[in-house]
């Protein structure tokens, strides 16, 4: 049974959406990023997306680029990521790794799956890997009983929504807008349509929404139609604006607390 799905459904059972917090490993430092992840968990994040730094993050906007650039230059690698996975599991949230494909391929797909499972990770989100190219990852994640999360987008055809959702385990990541990561003033109404279309295609797999959610009000709005709310750039922004590592972890915790209130604010429409 998928650890991600179990946790998201448990939140849904409380009449709310799950809160998924993204934080990249290695910003402001490896321990600093782990401290921010743990603070987010303690303040109410159900799932932590543990970001693997990558030199060419084509789906990310300037905020996340700025942070991962520091981590890349510091030489942060998969071993640091696995340390963060263990810390998040220890803190009581479900850890899921978020990685562009090349760092995983370079580490070795089977080795990655084995080490991730051993560290207590639930699985991985792969923003630039579509199921069509994912043969080795599908096999490795099956072999190690890991979740695998692929993305769907407003431009996805119904046929692709079906095939992508069928390849997903844990949840389906609905990229709410056409664009890169970053905070936005409003949540696109495309998000709600995409979630409805994905639900129709996915049936039983939870659908979480990412891209553009940054505050409690937006979280509450998305919680009204999605199974989980993913927040990334707003957490990274909080770290970038903080004076030091301690202040960064505190800021991440405060934001997680506000968002956790947001995902509980509005009565959730039963799926």
């Amino acid at each position, binding site marked *: 049974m998928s650890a991600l799905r179990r946790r998201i459904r448990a939140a849904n059972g409380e009449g709310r959406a799950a809160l998924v917090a993204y934080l990249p490993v290695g910003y402001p430092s490896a321990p600093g990023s782990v401290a921010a992840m743990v603070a987010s968990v303690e303040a109410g994040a159900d799932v932590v997306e543990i970001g693997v730094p990558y030199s*060419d993050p*084509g789906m990310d906007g300037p905020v996340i680029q700025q942070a991962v650039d520091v981590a890349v230059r510091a030489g942060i*690698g998969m071993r640091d990521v696995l340390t963060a996975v263990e810390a998040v599991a220890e803190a009581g949230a479900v850890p899921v790794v978020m990685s562009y494909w090349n760092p995983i391929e*370079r580490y070795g797909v089977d080795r990655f799956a084995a080490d991730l499972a051993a560290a207590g990770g639930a699985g991985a989100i792969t*923003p*630039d890997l579509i199921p069509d190219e994912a043969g080795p990852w599908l096999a490795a994640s099956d072999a190690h009983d890991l979740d695998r999360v692929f993305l769907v987008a407003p431009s996805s055809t119904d046929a692709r929504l079906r095939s992508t959702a069928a390849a997903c385990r844990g949840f389906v990541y609905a990229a709410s807008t*056409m664009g890169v990561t970053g905070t936005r003033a409003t949540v696109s109404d495309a998000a709600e349509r995409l979630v409805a279309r994905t639900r129709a295609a996915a049936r039983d797999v939870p659908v979480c929404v990412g891209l553009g959610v940054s505050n409690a009000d937006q979280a509450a709005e998305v919680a009204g139609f999605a199974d989980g709310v993913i927040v990334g750039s707003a957490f990274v922004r909080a770290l970038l604006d903080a004076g030091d590592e301690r202040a960064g972890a505190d800021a991440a915790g405060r934001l997680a607390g506000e968002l956790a209130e947001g995902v509980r604010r509005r009565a959730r429409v039963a799926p």
Partner: protein
Amino acid sequence: MTSSAVQPPVDRLVPTRPGWPDATGHFGVFGGRFVPEALVAALDELTEAYEVMRADPAFVEEFDRLQRDYTGRPSPITEVPRFAEHAGGARILLKREDLNHTGSHKINNVLGQALLTRRIGKTRVIAETGAGQHGVATATAAALMGLSCTVYMGEEDTRRQALNVARMRLLGAEVIPVTTGSRTLKDAINEAFRDWVTNVETTNYVFGTVAGPHPFPAMVRDFQRVIGDEARQQVLERVGRLPDAVLACVGGGSNAIGIFTAFVPDEEVRLIGLEAGGDGLDTGRHAATITGGSPGVLHGARSYLLQDENGQTIESHSISAGLDYPGVGPEHSYLHDIGRAEYRPVTDAEAMEAFALLCRTEGIIPAIESAHALAGALTVGRELGGRGGDPAVLLVNLSGRGDKDVETASAWFGLGDRDHSAPGAGLDEHQRATEGAVTRGEAVPGPAAGQQA
């Protein structure tokens, strides 16, 4: 309208393609699509529209007409005997893509993709550019076809290639300097992809080389193969036989694929790609992706790339902005792995020596990119020797002209009025053509010319 009397397109409708890539864009284990899901619909649309377009007689006729009347095709081949005196007795023929409108081979691809843009009803094009040649070509085609145009260019490259920035702006394009990462071509591609995923409803990405996700490597190859299709015929007519080797510089690799493709079935013809060796492979400061890299995924495809143990892309280094790229097209990786093509590094110093030599012996100022291929021809010619009465025949793709590189060359050779630094490799002080200054160990390295210009 007599001017439209193009050659009958009957035998050209669907040119014979190599047996690769497969239907999903794989060249063996290379290629494919490693992209965010949001781009898949656009890539599918491009693939389908392109497959219909390439078999459409109206397209073939319009493309031929533009190539003839606008680009100035066919480009000639020029034998360069004075240059070849330094190549061990080999005969050297240059395929003159530098004589195309806009000054390089890039226009071949851009006209095709601009026609495709119009066909799928999009009104805006974006492009990445390194040396600026693809950006200039895209801005040119956009002006010609009434499309709005934005070009992403690494900030470092906007300084190295200021002339081309001005050209693009004159042509009505918006040029956006990219300040992320290494501020070169790789980062310009990242920014162009971010623009595309955001504006894909109105915007087509006119990709400049045979890299990127399917269908770009195959489509750009199809548009560039005219180089080799023409050259193969021209060499047969001029020399009476096929060349012994075909040489081209390889950054992303579009001019090389363009001239190689027609010769791929001719197994006796060696295909040699010259990569940018920068300061030398052993220094780590180079852009020799195949000779100095390993397979991985970058910019939407699996291919060789320069990467560290964490899978991070390593910044490349080359005096040539157009070759300063840590990736390479997947078809080159495939041709390398199946042994059909060979790839060799050429250092900055070797390229600049060949650059100066062609200027002095033949009155042709090549692009520094193309000078890497010229340097390769000097070496291969010496390896093959004169072979008595039957000299080796080398066909070199002169992919672009060097106007854009005059500042870089001036700094390298110390030609500026106020520049009293020692001249770099390849230019002797007695104003004669030089040979072998580098290999004899007499040359001093150029004064970091790429960075200064």
